[in-house]
């Protein structure tokens, strides 16, 4: 991660919604070819930040550079070939099949009248195999569970063959098995395809386990960024999330693992109840 240029940077990024200042003067860099996590409490501006980075929202001030270009200068269609986005929640009342939904990931590559080419079908199949959605191909998207739909969305984003994948709490609807599977899949894609992943995480321990780089946000400002070992220090987590924290090690991987407690004054000592 030290070698390449950052794939995405933001300088002086601010965003106001009406009179509410949601993001204030953010400077950040997303290193190429690794798993980066955005963490912070609810309402700290994580999702807004992600929406600025994928051009859904236009920043009030500041500049975002993606793959060496000013983001405002990149056409949406060109952007969709380089950046895939997996939203947190998504539903449609229209009964497309899973395969049709994944094929829509090829939209930025297809001409107005052009049919899908062999290449598009191969990319789609590969994306579906990787996300374990191939066996769902003929099912209707309206009939899937939350976890299945999430995997279909990831497949669709992968069908865009992006360089950067943005995920907004990708695992919030998944059980523990599916969560680990998706995160491991993302790690594999980073290793084998040189993909870069930027995800918003609710679960700090999940972020600690899978991310090589963390961006910690508090009240719309960057509180810390860097390696998880540095960012997830006990004083940082206490300052940002307002919980007492002890940092240990996760037994399978040796990565940092956080134990939380409410302020000791409010909570009895362990075993005291």
């Amino acid at each position, binding site marked *: 991660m030290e070698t390449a240029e950052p794939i995405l940077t933001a300088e002086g990024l601010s965003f106001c919604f009406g009179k509410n200042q949601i993001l204030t003067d953010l400077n950040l860099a997303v290193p190429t070819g690794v798993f980066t996590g955005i963490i912070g409490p609810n309402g700290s501006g994580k999702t807004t930040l992600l929406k600025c980075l994928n051009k859904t929202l236009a920043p009030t001030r500041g500049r975002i550079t993606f793959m060496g270009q000013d983001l405002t200068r990149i056409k949406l269609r*060109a*952007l*969709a*070939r380089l950046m895939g986005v997996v939203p947190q929640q998504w539903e*449609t009342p229209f009964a*497309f099949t899973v395969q*049709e939904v994944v094929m829509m990931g090829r939209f930025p590559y*297809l001409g*107005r009248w052009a049919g899908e080419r062999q290449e598009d079908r191969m990319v789609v199949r590969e994306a579906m195999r990787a996300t374990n959605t191939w066996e769902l191909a003929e099912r209707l998207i309206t009939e899937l569970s939350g976890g299945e739909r999430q995997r279909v969305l990831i497949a*669709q984003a992968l069908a865009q063959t992006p360089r950067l994948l943005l995920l907004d709490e990708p695992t919030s609807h998944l059980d523990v098995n599916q969560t680990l599977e998706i995160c491991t899949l993302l790690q594999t894609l980073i290793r084998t395809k040189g993909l870069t992943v930027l995800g918003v995480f609710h679960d700090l321990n999940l972020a600690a386990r899978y991310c090589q780089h963390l961006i910690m946000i508090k009240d719309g400002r960057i509180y810390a960024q860097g390696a998880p070992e540095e960012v997830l220090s006990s004083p940082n987590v206490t300052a940002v999330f307002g919980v007492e924290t002890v940092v240990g090690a996760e037994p399978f991987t040796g990565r940092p693992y956080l134990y939380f407690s409410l302020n000791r004054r409010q909570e009895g000592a362990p075993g005291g109840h």
Partner: protein
Amino acid sequence: MKVITKYRLLMVGLILGVVLTGLVAMSLGPVPIRFPLDSFQSKILFDLRLPRILLALMVGAALAVAGVLFQGLFRNPLADPYILGTSSGAALGATIAVLSGINLQSLGLSARPLFAFGGALLATALVYYLGRMRKRPVLTIMLLAGIAVGAFFSALTSLLLFFRQEEMAKIMFWMMGGFSYARWAEVRIVLPYLGGAFLYSWSLARQLNLLLLGEEKAHQLGLAVEQFQRRIVITASVLVAAAVSVSGAIGFIGMVAPHIVRLLLGPDHRSLLPASALAGGLLLLLADTLARTLLSPVELPVGVLTSFIGGPFFLYLLHKGRSALD
């Protein structure tokens, strides 16, 4: 693959249905047709019945395609040009054109569809922006906005007619929806608008599919959503204006035809658009044939007939899908 076979079967079935219904409709009417044709009979057949049949097919297709576009735009299978007030807007425009006697013949244009287009566009844009006030279109707001805009435009039309009572009967009859004035001239008015707007919509089929996934997802997949939605509003308004300017306000074809096709083929616009166009044409041709033969020689306004069938259908859909649609 199954879907493609189904699509082909349905298209063949619809084309056969259109041809057969067309032939039956040619043979029905107060003047009996016997071979060999005399000149009176052939005049009835080719100057009255044939253009009327073609016009019903084209107007039905235009309304169905407009319905598909509105349903994609609002992500709601209940959207329909009649319910959304677009037809009332077009009717106001057309009424103004007729009453003011503006003549654009020197420019090679017919004033009625142009004015109807202006009215349709205004009404649709109003409903669209009112419906978006909560950032995404919500069924209740969309329907209420449609009712309000439709009522407002209808009231304006009534007011105009009130001051020109000598024209009232004729325009009221036209507004109820019907093809009794259908001649080749009307066919020539509608054809270019319908053809152009249909082909253009069809070329946007993939984009329309994306829109069904939601504005944000469509944006993330590379679609410039707002610009695209404006194009859809304009295209749908062209279709409704062309239809209303020749046949008045005919309700529910735009909702019923796409709904039936969607049940059979799914929501993919690449097959939904052509199949809905044929289904809409067939439905309206059937309705018009019934309208002129049920109480023959008296003709019912076909708009009254389609609303008799479409109204209860709409209520049924509303009841059935009320949880899924909000």
